[in-house]
């Protein structure tokens, strides 16, 4: 059964079938609810829907759809005749069928490959069960038909189907259509034909007959005949008109049980009169006929004939008058034109603004009003009632409650609230997900509910309403709610948040954590929900539509989800900004806030982290992007371009900043959040979004264009595209924790906890924690002066204060009464570094920048929390502060080391720099290597006298290095010291086993230097 109807026809069929199927679920559920006496008009409506799908499918050669809908139709027919009741099991099977039909109409091309056998079996089981087997057999029996003269017709029909036709259908015809002709140019559309046929009767059975059997002489063309057994109220004269067939293709069939032609004719005449008189078949003629063909009890017929067909026809006709299918293109065009009309109106109003002529002013005003109204009306054409998606919720709830063994009711209100078509379509999935969640996690089992003193059946209510220019959709369930303690525990367990984070979080904040990716509290993963991909997807899709999601819950009582959606996507509120004298629109959804900096702040507040400009907005680091640079540079930013931009803007800032200001918008999209520097803000405006020209679709920094009020175009910026163009590393920035603490790429794996502190007003300093023995709070009043030296007593030891401003050029100490003293580790002499205030202890990658700032005693700098931070070399600082204390020592130590070359293998630049400094200050020559491999290279090239190696290094670690080294005959006795943070007995043992001569813990300067000199002395002795 294959026909090559054009795609148009198929489309039309799919469209219609979907329309029928859209409402059918609700109707089935309604039938189930009123199973004792389902309203006939409802059953009839469903029946007709399925019937017309079946009819059209038959004409289009969609066998599977035809078969399935046929089976469903049979069941519905029986319900219609009150032979069976729409019990839940029956409705189950019917719904299964609807699902399949939906699936098949969705992918019509593959509908023939769908497996419908199970569904058909289920459905057939219904009527087979209800009818005694013997009877069934009889009904299934095929009977031969006879024409009016008693001749056999070559057409078989199941007795059952024939018996089930409506009693008032007087006539049976066999209509023969040539399929190849249907759907041809100028021919009749099969869909129109089916509609026509169904309006006046029913298609009982269909079959395709092969050309060989036909009497048609022209066999070469091989026409396919489609025979339709049609039961109707139309008599022989009208049937040819209705069937759109010539008389010779119509065969009157004698209905079983009636034999005489005469009798038939007499009846036909009588009906004929009636039919002609009113020209259209309606209930009046029906009732007339009922008298004639009265097989059934009077009551039932009058019920069905009076209520159903009348209502059906009137409903159908009024519907067809009310709606017209219009292609979206036309609506869009209308919208464009309306927008243009608004512009014309604006120009008109401006032109006549000063005109006082009352007549003209009146005209202007009317133009104004009409235009506004026109625009609003056209906007409404895109709107659809939210009921379109609410409709499927009862079905979901019903299925789920059965599956989960719960009793759940659903209340829906506000179906009439309208939303933009696009939003409605994309809202369906999130909404389904939310309802599933409510059923699965929210509502408890009846026993649990009874225990909690609640009604056994739970209720989910869905409500849509307008509020403040937005649509709110509220999903409320009276289930167990969300236990914020559980969320908390889970968040800690999954390391989404630390305990400290919860200190400042409200219950609501905590509950909203469930929208984090990978968060699911269902202890059991079911096939309904709880795979850990849940609310985050819902949240993202809602945010993509420009909406927001809010979760409220009372533990043990209820959960409420509130979706706030914009009315439309085609018109979005935007911030209009200016850069380089061109206007751009930033969608309001992406906008968080606007910040304006004045005068010196322009320079000072925008800091630099590496090659990325940053701004500290309420203690959070915000990367900055200059829109003017973005539009100038059409290839994505590289390290180089970024550096050029930074240096350019730094210079500019230095030269002229008085009276300057700088505006930026804090924008975000998903995980990206950054500051977009613009020239000027014009204000917010509702704009009509137009897509980018198809040739320019690959320009990522725009999401569309729009026409502004003055008739000029402006581009809409795509925040995500700009972020990636500017080379903002999204994944890194998304981890806000790291963002706070580090400004630079963590290209170097090793991280170190450092103490951040301040000494003077401006500078920030940092010292790695392993170098600190303790921190002491001291009072300046306790400080004793001996000569120019300051001492303070800590634990009965007098400790000399070291002031950093005496050593480097930094601002002087802020003299609070309470200050802090840093007591360094591994320093033999009692010195303490004075600090004015402690900032933080944080973990940073020790990838310190040794180039930006160099001074004797400073190891280097690093951007921490957006501020340049100096790393002082404590030993060097103390040495420089009080050179007299170190003189003897250094003289002694310097001697043996002089001229010796030490190879230092260390991956972390910070420690490399630190240790190198120690060794160099002791007079050694130092070569450095970043890992074991590099160390081996150097060993083979130059001739160092000793190796000091870290253990944990990338590429080749210290263990491997020493192993290889000891395998070389030349290096068997080569002095090698392990210098590591690993401080366990096992590691120590292993180090000696593998061949290290010594093992030093990071980082005891004096011990290290002693050991080094010890080795050289030993060697010298040998």
């Amino acid at each position, binding site marked *: 059964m294959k026909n090559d109807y054009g795609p148009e026809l198929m489309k039309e069929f799919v469209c219609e079938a979907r329309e029928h199927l859209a409402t059918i679920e609700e109707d089935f559920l309604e039938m189930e609810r009123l199973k004792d006496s389902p309203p006939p008009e409802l059953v009839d409506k469903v029946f007709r829907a399925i019937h017309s799908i079946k009819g059209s499918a038959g004409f289009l050669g969609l066998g599977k759809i035809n078969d399935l809908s046929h089976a469903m139709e049979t069941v519905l027919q029986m319900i219609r005749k009150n032979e069976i009741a729409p019990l839940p099991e029956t409705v189950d099977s019917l719904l299964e069928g609807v699902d399949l039909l939906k699936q098949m109409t969705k992918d019509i091309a593959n509908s023939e490959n769908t497996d419908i056998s199970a569904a058909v079996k289920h459905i057939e089981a219904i009527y087979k069960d209800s009818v005694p087997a013997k009877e069934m057999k009889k009904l299934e029996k095929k009977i031969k038909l006879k024409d009016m003269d008693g001749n056999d017709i070559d057409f078989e029909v199941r007795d059952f189907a024939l018996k089930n036709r409506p009693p008032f259908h007087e006539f049976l015809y066999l209509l023969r259509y040539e399929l190849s002709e249907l759907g041809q140019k100028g021919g009749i559309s099969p869909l129109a034909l089916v509609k026509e046929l169904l309006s006046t009767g029913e298609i009982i059975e269909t079959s395709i007959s092969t050309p060989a059997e036909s009497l048609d002489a022209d066999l070469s063309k091989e026409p396919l005949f489609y025979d339709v057994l049609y039961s109707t109220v139309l008599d022989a004269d009208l049937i040819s008109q209705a069937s759109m067939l010539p008389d010779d293709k119509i065969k009157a069939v004698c209905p079983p049980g009636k034999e005489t032609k005469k009798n038939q004719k007499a009846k036909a005449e009588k009906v004929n009169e009636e039919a002609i008189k009113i020209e259209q078949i309606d209930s009046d003629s029906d009732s007339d006929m009922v008298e004639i063909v009265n097989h059934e009890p009077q009551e039932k017929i009058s019920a069905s004939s009076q209520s159903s067909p009348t209502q059906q026809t009137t409903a159908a006709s009024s519907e067809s008058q009310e709606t017209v299918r219009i292609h979206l293109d036309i609506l869009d065009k209308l919208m*464009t*034109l309306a*927008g*243009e009309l608004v*512009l014309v109106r604006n120009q008109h109003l401006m032109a006549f603004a000063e005109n006082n002529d009352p007549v003209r002013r009146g005209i202007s005003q009317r133009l104004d009003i009409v235009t506004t109204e026109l625009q609003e009306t056209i906007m409404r054409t895109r709107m659809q009632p939210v009921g379109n998606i609410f409709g499927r919720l009862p079905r979901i709830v019903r299925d789920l409650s059965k599956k989960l063994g719960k009793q759940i009711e659903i209340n829906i209100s506000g179906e009439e609230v309208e939303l933009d078509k696009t939003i409605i379509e994309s809202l369906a999935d999130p909404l389904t997900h939310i309802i599933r969640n409510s059923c699965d996690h929210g509502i408890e089992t009846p026993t649990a509910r009874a225990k909690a003193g609640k009604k056994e059946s739970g209720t989910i209510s869905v409500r849509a309403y307008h509020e403040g220019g937005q649509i709110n959709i509220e999903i409320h369930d009276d289930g167990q709610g969300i236990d914020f303690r559980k969320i908390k525990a889970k968040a800690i367990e999954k390391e989404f948040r630390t305990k400290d984070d919860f200190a400042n979080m409200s219950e609501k904040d905590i509950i909203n954590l469930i929208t984090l990716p990978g968060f699911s509290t269902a202890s059991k993963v079911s096939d309904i929900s709880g795979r850990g991909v849940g609310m985050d997807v819902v949240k993202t899709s809602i945010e993509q539509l420009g909406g927001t999601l809010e979760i409220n819950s009372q533990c043990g009582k209820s959960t409420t989800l509130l979706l706030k959606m914009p009315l439309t996507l085609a018109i979005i509120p935007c911030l209009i900004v200016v850069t380089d004298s*061109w*206007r751009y629109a930033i969608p309001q959804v992406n906008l968080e806030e606007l910040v304006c900096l004045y005068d010196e702040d322009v320079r000072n507040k925008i800091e630099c982290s590496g090659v990325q400009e940053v701004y500290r907005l309420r203690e959070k680091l915000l990367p900055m992007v200059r829109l003017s640079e973005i*539009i*100038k540079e*059409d*290839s994505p930013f590289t390290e180089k371009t970024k550096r050029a931009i930074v240096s350019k803007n730094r210079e500019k800032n230095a030269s002229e900043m008085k009276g300057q200001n700088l505006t930026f918008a804090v924008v975000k999209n998903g995980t990206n959040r950054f500051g977009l520097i613009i020239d000027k803000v014009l204000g917010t405006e509702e704009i009509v979004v*137009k897509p980018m*020209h*198809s*040739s*320019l679709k*690959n*320009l990522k*920094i*725009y999401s569309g*264009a729009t*026409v502004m009020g003055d*008739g*000029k*175009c*402006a*581009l809409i910026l795509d925040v995500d595209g700009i972020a990636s163009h500017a080379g903002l590393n999204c994944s890194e920035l998304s981890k806000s924790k790291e963002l706070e603490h580090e400004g630079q790429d963590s290209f170097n794996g090793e991280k170190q906890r450092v103490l951040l502190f301040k000494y003077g007003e401006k500078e920030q300093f940092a010292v790695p924690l392993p170098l600190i023995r303790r921190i002491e709070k001291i009072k300046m009043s306790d400080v004793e002066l001996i000569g120019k030296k300051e001492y303070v007593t800590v634990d009965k030891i007098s400790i000399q204060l070291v002031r950093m401003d005496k050593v480097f050029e930094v601002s002087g100490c802020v003299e609070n009464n309470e200050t802090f003293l840093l007591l360094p580790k591994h320093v033999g002499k009692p010195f303490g570094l004075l600090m004015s205030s402690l900032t933080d202890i944080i973990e940073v990658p020790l990838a310190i920048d040794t180039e930006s700032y160099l001074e004797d005693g400073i190891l280097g700098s690093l951007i921490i929390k957006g501020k340049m931070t100096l790393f002082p070399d404590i030993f060097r600082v103390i040495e420089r502060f009080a050179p007299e204390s170190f003189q003897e020592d250094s003289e002694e130590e310097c001697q043996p080391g002089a001229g010796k070359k030490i190879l230092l293998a260390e991956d972390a630049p910070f420690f490399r720099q630190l240790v190198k400094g120690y060794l160099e200050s002791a007079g050694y020559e130092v070569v450095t290597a970043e890992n074991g491999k590099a160390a081996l290279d150097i060993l083979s090239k130059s001739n160092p006298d000793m190796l000091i190696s870290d253990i944990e290094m990338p590429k080749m670690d210290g263990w491997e290095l020493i192993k290889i080294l000891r395998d070389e005959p030349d290096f068997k006795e080569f002095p090698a010291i392990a210098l590591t943070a690993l401080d366990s007995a096992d590691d120590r043992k292993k180090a000696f086993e593998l061949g290290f001569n010594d093992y030093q813990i990071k980082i005891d300067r004096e011990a290290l230097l002693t050991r080094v000199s010890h080795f050289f002395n030993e060697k010298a002795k040998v």
Partner: protein
Amino acid sequence: MSEIKANEEDVKMLFCSFYAGGNLFGIRILDVKEVTSEVTITPVFHAPPEVRGYVNIRGQIHLVLDFKMLLGFSGGQETAKDDSSNCVILLKSHVGEAFGLLVDRVSDVIEADSSRIEENLSQNQAGEAGKYRSDIIKSICKLENGLMGIIDASEVLKIVEKDAVSA
């Protein structure tokens, strides 16, 4: 249109002629929607160089392409400044999604005998301005006082797309 194609031998074709960089070009009049000069072009940064920007024509946004840049003439940017003489030829939708060509000056509608039109054989041969992108100049029409390059408008957007991707 189909008639014209049917017997091309002795049929007269109409061209909208225009000047760009001192040369005369023509577009089949059936491809032209309208000619307009009062436009404000909003630049689309990051687009290929021949894309001048967007312009709003009665509520519909059109892409404006600089014809001279499209052909590879240099100095397209300079002529833009005295936009008094600049004109945009907007093309019909069957040619491609809403776009127009910015040219120096629109001239007459020229009626040309199809026998006077020859295929442009000088593919990629240098014109006066050096690098010529002759793939959009499908054919040449011999007029009494010179030559007119005939543009295949449907090729234009393909070039822009190619440039956009390579950029």
